[in-house]
């Protein structure tokens, strides 16, 4: 049984901070299907559309009937452990620095045999276990052998912690504490065991509801932070840049209306100022610090979360300029993800539908409760997923967008939601 992770000792400032060496990240193009599913928390394998054979490793043709009609389909992952080994030697720096490392060979009930990183709670072969897919520190999918029965502290398994960004004992920045989402986020992180939560507030003189209760939590420290102000951002980075492990950028400006119902560009400019340029400022100020601490002990820097919107995928005209700013932020987040990847820092994008807050007052339900959004983010951090679509509206939009983006555009333009 996994022993609970103990609070790590304070960092010895005399010692050099270890640098990150990523696990092997090269994959063939066809194998990236595994990564695409794992990025959203699913374990999928290629299934032949002609003969239903499930196969692994990924191939360009069905191993049974040689059909090219292969589709990635969700798997339960149940199987039998055939053999396990504990590696005491590795040719790769990432593993060499983390030995010993447990591996298993599993016969999936679905057919193929798969090599997995093995959770320490899985017993000796032969035994039942469940295989899942996770993104490793290189951002590529790997298969994990999980124990048949879950246990309380199984997330503290040394290998599993490497695959995710569990907030437990970590130091987190939430960039805006004044919104219901920000406050729910802070509470969820405290509950998840975060060591420190720094909470930004742009206008400290405004006594907004909930803020004083938040500030009273022992883990919480309020800090002035205005993402539209470069000096404010760099001051914050100077103060906590060397300590922050997870950045949650939830600050946003959200006003309704599109092009014709407003004159001028002031509102659109403010949306871009925070939603797009704010992310850019924050990335420039805190990105290098996170990258530098990506292997700094058991609570190393690990993740960056962006609160985007499902409207980043396709414009929602009644929130038209907001959609555009989120689309810009989405594009920039992909750039950030590419730049953070060499250090093994996970960039998590969250695409909610309408949130149940004041700026969506006129939107019909279902609307996403701030608490649900916050728990979806904590789950994404723990599970190491990088694209999160919380709530029914987001799920439906995503499905429609994947099926046919043009049809979605037309439906939305015709007044749909």
């Amino acid at each position, binding site marked *: 049984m996994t022993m609970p992770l103990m609070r790590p000792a304070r960092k010895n400032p005399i010692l050099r901070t270890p640098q990150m060496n990523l696990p*092997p990240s090269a994959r063939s193009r066809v194998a990236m299907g595994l990564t695409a599913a794992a990025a959203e928390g699913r374990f999928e394998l290629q299934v032949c559309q002609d003969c239903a054979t499930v196969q692994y*490793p990924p191939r360009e043709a069905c191993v049974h009937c040689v059909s090219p009609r292969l589709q990635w389909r969700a798997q339960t992952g149940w199987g039998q452990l055939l*053999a396990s080994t504990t590696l*005491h*030697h590795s040719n790769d720096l*990432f593993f060499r620095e983390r030995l010993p490392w447990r591996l298993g*060979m599993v016969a999936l009930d679905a057919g193929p*045999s798969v090599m*997995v990183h093995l959770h320490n709670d899985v017993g000796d072969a032969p035994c039942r276990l469940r295989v899942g897919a996770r993104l490793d520190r290189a951002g590529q999918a*790997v298969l994990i052998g999980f124990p048949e029965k879950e246990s309380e502290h199984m997330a503290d398994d040394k290998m599993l912690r490497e695959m995710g960004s569990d907030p437990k004992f970590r130091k987190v920045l939430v960039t805006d504490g004044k919104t219901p989402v920000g406050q729910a986020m802070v509470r969820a992180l405290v509950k998840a065991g975060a060591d420190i939560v720094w909470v930004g507030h742009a206008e400290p003189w405004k006594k907004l509801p909930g803020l004083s209760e938040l500030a009273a939590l022992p883990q919480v420290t309020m800090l002035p932070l205005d993402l539209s102000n470069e000096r404010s951002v760099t001051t914050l980075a100077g103060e906590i840049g060397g300590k922050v492990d997870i950045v949650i950028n939830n600050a946003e400006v959200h006003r309704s209306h599109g092009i014709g119902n407003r004159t001028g560009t002031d509102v659109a400019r403010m949306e871009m100022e925070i939603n797009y340029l704010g992310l850019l400022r924050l990335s420039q100020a805190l990105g290098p610090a996170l990258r530098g601490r990506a292997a700094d002990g058991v609570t190393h820097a690990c993740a960056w979360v962006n609160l985007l919107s499902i409207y980043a995928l396709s414009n929602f005209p009644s929130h038209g300029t907001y959609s555009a700013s989120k689309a810009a932020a989405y594009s920039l987040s992909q750039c950030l993800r590419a730049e953070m990847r060499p250090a093994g820092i996970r960039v998590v994008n969250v695409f909610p539908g309408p949130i149940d807050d004041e700026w969506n007052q006129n939107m019909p339900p279902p609307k996403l409760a701030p608490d649900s959004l916050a728990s979806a983010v904590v789950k994404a951090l723990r599970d190491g997923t990088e694209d999160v679509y919380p709530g029914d509206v987001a799920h439906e939009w995503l499905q429609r967008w994947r099926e046919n983006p043009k049809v979605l555009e037309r439906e939305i333009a015709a007044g749909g939601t």
Partner: protein
Amino acid sequence: MRQRQSYQGVAVAVPITVPYQRYCTQGAHWFVGQAVQALVQASGLAKEDIDGLCLSSFSLSPDTAVGLTQHLGLSPRWLDHIPTGGASGVMSLRRAARAVQAGDADVVACIGADTNHVDSFRQTLGSFSHFARDASYPYGSGGPNSVFAFITANYMRTYGARREDFGRIAVDQRSNALKNPNALFKKPLSLDEYMAGRPISDPIHLFDCVMPCAGADAFLVMSQARARDLGLPHAIIRGAIERHNAYASDPIMVQGGWRRDLDDLYAQAGATPAQVDFVQTYDDYPVIVMMQFEDLGFCAKGEGPQFVRSHAMTHDGSFPNNTSGGQLSVGQAGAAGGFIGMVEALRQLCDLAGERSVIGAQLGLVSGFGMVTYDRCLCTGAVLLGRPA
């Protein structure tokens, strides 16, 4: 299946070893060149008489065999490139023999050669195959160690093998290696030392692993008439098999492809396993040697552990195995690892094995095993070599 033609009239001769080195700054081309020079000198042929070339190497990139013809000034009329590692020796011999029988070539040089720079092994592992890159290298990057750890652990559990049983194989091979000047390991190995080896990927420990090195092994294939004209001692091919991706539906490897073609091999030779005087098994890990004892007909499946307990596997023992010391004690010179058993068998049958001779050996078996692209080796092959009548 149609009856295969025999390999009658074909001679295998001139076993060459370009001495192994742990690390080497020269490229694979240098080792191929050394091998060709040694083949020419030892055979008395002119370089121009070599009109067939069959080459196996992992470290020629971006060249393939044809690049070597220009590099070394050869102009063969028959060319083959067999990048199949541990199976390449048997596979080259089969191809070269058919070319000679058909008249497509008169003298074929079969060469396995690789260099080994300090970082070669790590780089080879990461780019060895699509499946390795996608589905095994990202899992601990242990290379074949972790895959064979699974196979060994499963075999031990299923058939009751103990580490000591694998130790017997390693210890006896080391004893053979002490009589082989080319072996990189020069010190005796006791069973206690084997058992005390540090864990690498358990149950695989230090002395279960081969040491990557640089080197080349080579031989010539020609007609027996030509060999006699040249006065070259030689062996003849009594039977030969190969098989790829056998038993793919076994969830984990418990048997090798030899098993499928075993009857064909002995039928072609008109011989039985009991008549075999020595074996040169492919020894990337001892568990695979034990599987070959079973899958090549020397004992039943699962009896490997008992078989090694009841036999001495030294060159002068009751069941001589890897009389050169094998890769476990000589070193694994990349693709030459697929040739080491072949040149050793030729030395035994041509009376060139010196103090490690298997006295009176008439029939020897050489086995090949190569290419761990994902969870098992894909290529298997075996050849029965005998003394000419």
